[in-house]
């Protein structure tokens, strides 16, 4: 789970105002929710790809793809199988098998692949847009960005704290797994049932560690006089720059292009 952490680089995306990146994620979340055209989604994917290459975050995105591949295969297969029970909505294209099996009409054709791929790509793009924000915005910037959007500091701080704590919990879980296996607990060559049992074993020390960390954090909040009822100041400020304008412009073009392609190349799925 260490792929869920901020990656310290000096890329174009890193230099953007967090609010620009939040807007990008929200726009992409809406777009991938409504666009179901394969051609339009491939265009959007190409736009994402250009950003990843331009910002040097291809290794991280590749890591995300490897982590998501089981989910993506599952989504593809789900819609592929559902597609078997449907006729293609448009004429033409190869049909590999058509007939009745166990009183069910089946049609195995190009459309089944298309439908599976479209749904998998939509989910991937949606997650990737969130991930792009996550790995290029540190939790201090997240808090600043949310505060600038007039989110109460308590909420912004809680969101930022979650992203600060995630790496700590990941490190703790890893250390616990290593410590228990070092004492003889088999976690490598074991069946699914044993693996599940082992995770219960790991969860006990993890729970105590997390409670301990939570206690330490609440003490630290006290030592630093954090009081959500009192107005606090801010040492750093965030300001949109020309980078943000260019990025928003490029995003606007990408959104427009996706919508146009959706209009001209739409196959109902």
């Amino acid at each position, binding site marked *: 789970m260490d792929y869920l952490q*901020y990656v*310290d680089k000096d890329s174009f995306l890193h230099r953007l105002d967090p609010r620009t990146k939040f807007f990008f994620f929200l726009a992409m979340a809406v777009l991938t929710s409504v666009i179901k055209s394969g051609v339009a989604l491939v265009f959007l994917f190409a736009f994402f790809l250009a950003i990843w290459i331009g910002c040097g975050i291809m290794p991280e995105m590749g890591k995300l793809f490897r982590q998501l591949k089981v989910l993506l295969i599952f989504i593809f297969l789900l819609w592929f199988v559902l597609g078997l029970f449907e006729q293609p909505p448009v004429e033409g294209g190869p049909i590999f098998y058509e007939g009745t099996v166990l009183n069910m009409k089946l049609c195995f054709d190009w459309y089944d692949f298309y439908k599976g791929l479209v749904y998998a790509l939509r989910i991937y793009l949606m997650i990737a847009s969130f991930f792009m924000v996550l790995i290029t915005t*540190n*939790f*201090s*910037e997240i808090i600043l960005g949310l505060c600038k959007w007039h989110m109460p500091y308590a909420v912004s701080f809680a969101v930022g*704290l979650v992203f*600060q704590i995630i*790496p*700590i919990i990941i490190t*703790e879980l890893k*250390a*616990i797994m*290593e*410590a*228990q*296996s*070092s*004492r*003889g*607990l*088999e*976690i*490598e*060559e074991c069946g699914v049932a044993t693996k599940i049992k082992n995770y219960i*074993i790991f969860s*006990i*020390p993890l729970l*105590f*560690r997390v409670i*301990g*960390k939570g206690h*330490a*954090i*609440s*003490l*630290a*909040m*006290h*030592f*630093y*006089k*954090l*009081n959500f009822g*009192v*107005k*606090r*100041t*801010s*040492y*750093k*400020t965030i300001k949109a720059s020309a980078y943000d304008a260019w990025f928003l412009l490029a995003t606007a073009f990408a959104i427009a292009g996706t919508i146009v392609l959706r209009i001209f190349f739409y196959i109902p799925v």
Partner: protein
Amino acid sequence: MNYRIQHITYQYAPEQKEVLRDVSLEIQKSAVTAVVGPSGCGKTTLVDILSGVIPKLESNGVLQGELELGEDALVSVVSQSPENQLFGYGVEDAIAFGMENMGLPAEEISERMEYVLDLLNLQYLRKRSVAALSGGQRQAVCIASVLAMRPDILIMDEPVSSLDPNGKKMVQNVLNQLRADGTTVLIVDNNLEWSADIVDRVVGLYDGCVLFDGAKEEFFRDFDLQEKLGVTIPQEAEIYRAIAKLNSGVEMFYSMQGAIDALDRIFTQKTFSVEAPKEVVGEAFLTTHQLNKVFADGFQALKEINTAFPKGKVIAIMGQNGSGKTTLVKHLNGLYKPTSGDVRYNGQSILKKTVAQISRNIILVFQHPEHMLFEQTVTQEITFCARMQKLEFTEEQVAEVLEKYGLKDDAETFPINLSMGKKHLLTILSVLFSNADVVILDEPTLGMDLHIKAQLEEIIAYLKQQGKTVLMISHEIPLVFKVADGAVILSGGKKVYEGSKEALSRREDIFDAINISLPPVVQLSKRYGFSKICYNVADFAQEAARLLALREE
């Protein structure tokens, strides 16, 4: 006017025992005061009361007495785990956090930020992320973050307990600067080894009561009190204790320079006559061959490491943090697979075995006991390894170990509720019931007071007597030289030394290169041309007595 604590008594619940009883003491302004005492003596409770955690966050207890700290006095705490205390991604974010909470304007925050960064010589860290800092740097940033709030009293809770020698030196420098700056500092730590030169006063707590409140010189003279409180003192102070028994006129010392000044008046400085170093002899049954480790981010942690660990010996693995010590031992028990090279046990490669399979022969005890403890009782925890390895044991054997190491009364206790030192002792004791030939201890003294450290020495000696090999990563150099037969020293992922401690104690060049000091007993026995290099205070005292007797003749 100094800060005063008057007749403080505290119970966590009305029906519970008093954790602090009629505690009265004075914290001198602009001075560094150390609060010492064994686990459970009430040190943490005192910190909680001073910092306002009690009664603001923990309001269920019964608090009596009075704190005379002045109106609106700000008391800030630097905890022993800065990673839990620093809020913010970057160093500047973390330092600004407290000041932002106080509602200070940006200009003032900026001014104070520059002041603390200059004061603590941390300007070079200001653009770094907190996650990328070393332990010592994090602790220093943590101190800077609370100092920027301009506290009236700065409390530091075991600030160097998990730091390497470089980290300790950094915190020592920071404290010296604070002392010169007139900051009132309270160090809560039962280890005075690193702070003896810095502290002005000592407060000793025992069973909730103040047993001592006075100047540090007075404290260092009271040997019985030091032992009763289980305080780890500098080895120089231990040497003074031993020499004072031989020569009552010796001037008191607790630092290396002090020791040289005092002992030069008793002994004559001589060139140490080099004796043939005794090599670590033994069948090398655990070996590494051209071991290389490159992590996914491209960092090469180990470079061409060839080592041969002999049977039945205690071998210390030393080096600064980041030198590759933990990476090396994690290869020995299979947690890490090398990028290239091999690890062999009894001549057979272990690379294809699982960690659990390897643990039957090579067992690793982790630095933080909380990662290992998960059973319901101490008794169950102590037999965990034996049960995992399906080994037989009797209730009598378990009872005997619990009795011997002072855990009999805790047999049915939930292990997490034990003190840090006892938790660590428990994880180490559990290997006594395994049949592993190699026991690896990663920073075993963490959280241990003097009494538990003595028990650890006993366990190591017992394992060695049983023919087992003990590999020990430790930054406690005097302890290492006391118990180890040999050492492997790493620096920047490379092996810079492997051999006996006798040969190592003659290699000042290595210690200079890795920025670690040889133990005082070693340095002083060489300085005064003793007939052998001493590795513990008892041997040093014996040699000193012999020299003094010769001189009298």
